[in-house]
């Protein structure tokens, strides 16, 4: 058992750290999403130029060929320094890996480079209004018409669809097959008449997600990934990779938030000192730190295991569940500490930290829903880790 980095990992960490310290462009611009995306595109170009885009991709496809530990180091360090996201986060984390794993040589040739440069943004078309947790029940249909597929249906929770060139689309190609079969994974061009993206405003007032409506959209047959009818398997491995890849960034973000929470508690006066002097708050803050540390160490254990077996195991579900709990608990506690000022949000003169915690409180409500609800994650753990019987 060894939690220290090897000399080469340490060297990698130092290189990342130094480069980010020198190149991190700092906070994203305030204003609309367009400004943010322009900023992120520039940042991605900078990352790519220095070889930090697609760090886990094999070198032959333009990546750095980094180990999983190196990837974790990079993601963790970037979050620690609060570097912005690249513009094409889904292309890098899911699109590229799925093309590398399941794509044809032509597809690799065509798609990988513009993902790395951010020239082509990717989005993910999995969820539908009627198919949330029960992803396999999705209804979007693709019908073969000559050498094209014609797609109609609706997707939802599609991040940055309005900027995307390519959509990783799962659609039903064999309506009479059992529901997990008969699905196919497509790369759909978003720039066509049959596709429309509408922003879906969230309870925070932001519109990072979209609904995507497809009305006889057309996809050439060479844009199938992994073969017709294999969509379920391709989608699931994509989701597992997404979860594993994001874990270390999420952990660093929690660490940053805990630091800000400690600062908040020290600064907010109560009657009789600061909130940081109050035994009740101290206990809860300490518990959050302990749980965050357990989550971090679990992730390292998971990483070691994944490196041995090659595939992320179902234990990853624990981390996602725990992250949602901690992040929600943390923002709830921050609002409690703010006491009478808890309602005041961005732009209020008397707001604490300009309403950052109010935004965090609202945004984190979705943490237990997005990317697999906590209920579903518990099912996965019960069934696949503990071997308990399935209900359905």
């Amino acid at each position, binding site marked *: 058992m060894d939690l220290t980095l090897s000399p080469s990992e340490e060297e990698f960490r130092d290189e990342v750290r130094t480069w980010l310290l020198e190149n991190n462009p700092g906070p994203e611009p305030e204003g609309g999403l367009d400004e943010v995306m322009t900023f992120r595109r520039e940042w991605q170009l900078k990352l790519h130029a220095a070889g930090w885009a697609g760090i886990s991709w094999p070198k032959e496809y333009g990546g750095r060929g980094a180990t999983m530990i190196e990837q974790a180091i990079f993601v963790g360090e970037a979050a620690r320094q609060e570097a912005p996201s690249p513009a094409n986060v889904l292309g890098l984390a899911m699109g590229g890996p799925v093309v590398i794993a399941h794509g044809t040589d032509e597809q690799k040739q065509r798609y990988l480079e513009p993902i790395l440069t951010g020239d082509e943004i990717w989005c993910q078309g999995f*969820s539908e*209004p*009627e198919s*949330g*947790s*029960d992803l396999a*029940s999705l209804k979007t249909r693709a019908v073969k018409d000559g050498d094209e597929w014609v797609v109609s249906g609706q997707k*939802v*929770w599609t991040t940055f669809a309005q900027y995307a060139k390519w959509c990783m689309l799962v659609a039903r190609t064999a309506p009479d097959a059992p529901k997990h079969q008969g699905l196919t994974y497509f790369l759909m061009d978003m720039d066509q008449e049959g596709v429309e993206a509408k922003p*879906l*405003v*969230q*309870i925070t*007032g932001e519109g990072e997600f979209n609904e995507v409506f497809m009305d006889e959209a057309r996809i050439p047959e060479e844009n199938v990934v992994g073969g017709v009818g294999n969509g379920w398997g391709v989608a699931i491995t994509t989701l597992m990779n997404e979860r594993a890849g994001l874990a270390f960034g999420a952990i660093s973000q929690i660490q940053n938030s805990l630091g800000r929470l400690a600062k908040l508690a020290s600064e*907010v*006066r*109560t*009657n009789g000192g600061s*909130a940081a002097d109050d035994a*009740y708050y101290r206990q809860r803050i300490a518990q959050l730190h302990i749980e965050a540390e357990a989550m971090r160490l679990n992730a390292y254990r998971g990483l070691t295991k994944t490196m041995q077996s090659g595939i992320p195991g179902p234990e990853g579900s624990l981390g996602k569940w725990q992250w949602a709990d901690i992040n929600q608990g943390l923002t709830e506690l921050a*609002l*409690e*500490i*703010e*006491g*009478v*000022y*808890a*309602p*005041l*949000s*961005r*732009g*209020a*003169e*008397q*707001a604490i930290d300009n*309403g950052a915690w*109010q935004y965090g*409180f*609202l945004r984190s*409500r*979705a943490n*237990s*829903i*997005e990317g697999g*609800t906590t*209920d579903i994650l*518990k099912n996965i753990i019960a069934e696949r880790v503990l071997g308990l019987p399935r*209900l*359905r």
Partner: protein
Amino acid sequence: MYFDLTDEQQAIKATAHDFLASRFKSERIRELAASEDGFDAAGWGEMAELGWTGLALPEEWGGQGLGIVELAILFEEMGYALAPSPLFSSTIVGLALTLCGSDDQRDRYLRPLAAGERRGSPALWDAGSPASPGEFTMEAKADGDGIVLDGVKTMVADAASADFFVVATADGRRHLVERDAEGVSVTAEPSIDLTRRFSSVGLDGVRVAAADTLPGEAADYFPVFHRLCVALAAESTGIAQRTMEMAVAYAKDRQQFGRPIGAYQAVSHRCAQMLLETENARSTVYGAAWAADAEPESLPLAASMAKAYASDAGWRVPNASIQVHGGIGFTWEHDLHFFLKRGRANAAIFGDAKWHRERVADAVLAPAPDPAAL
């Protein structure tokens, strides 16, 4: 012993329910949420006609002379409907004038307030004061036979539509200050709650004549405070009730994996928990409201219990309802978030759950004994 609503009380509840349901449909709430000041003049007029502006105020001064139980019933429905209205602020001011005002002040301020012709709001918290409620710091500086006020009050609800404020000072007194008096300024403080607005009220050398200082002193306002806590807790109970109903309806309808999601214990037990929290909130509110009317010596503890419990339930139940709804519950187009936000704001004002639990602890824990004894 009969711990339920009487027929008359049932009638009040039904009237309120029906009126508010017809008046504050989702589209109307959204209009008001998007408006500059969030004030619904037409709705206010109708509430005044229904007698709500004077519901628990003495008949002598134009009120209906009903009790805190009836007030709690009304505010539970206000929360259920998520009615954006300054009725709560005006009710507090009415109670303050009733319990701590002079006859002259009641004549000048309470009577039009009860009739709904004018609106008032309490201006209590000093900007920059600690996050947990304590002493007020604004000085009542002597000035002739009146006083002069300088400073900023914050977390003032419904200030934009208020005609006057009841301003608290460090000597424990309250003062009537007209909205358009010289030196008064109102600045909106954006909050998560779009259905009840908060503002800061600046007082820049504002003169208050002696006749506008209420005769009541610090401790005299405790009965006002405890009653408003009950009304606010009732409102949060209504929020919990409504969002629980939304969750249950959705859980019956929404299908996943071939059955309604309400058939899964992860969902159905969460709904049962919502019922528990809602019923507990309601019981503590009814108990405190009854105490206010019939057994005032037990009101302070009962009111803190109700405000503590309903503060939690008022945002946790909407929060759980969002979880039952999944993604759709996280969208602006669904109404749930307005309830969550109002519930969370209600939890924060007039003492949060922790502050009220500390009051309960004061009451139930004997003073510390000789530390030498284990």
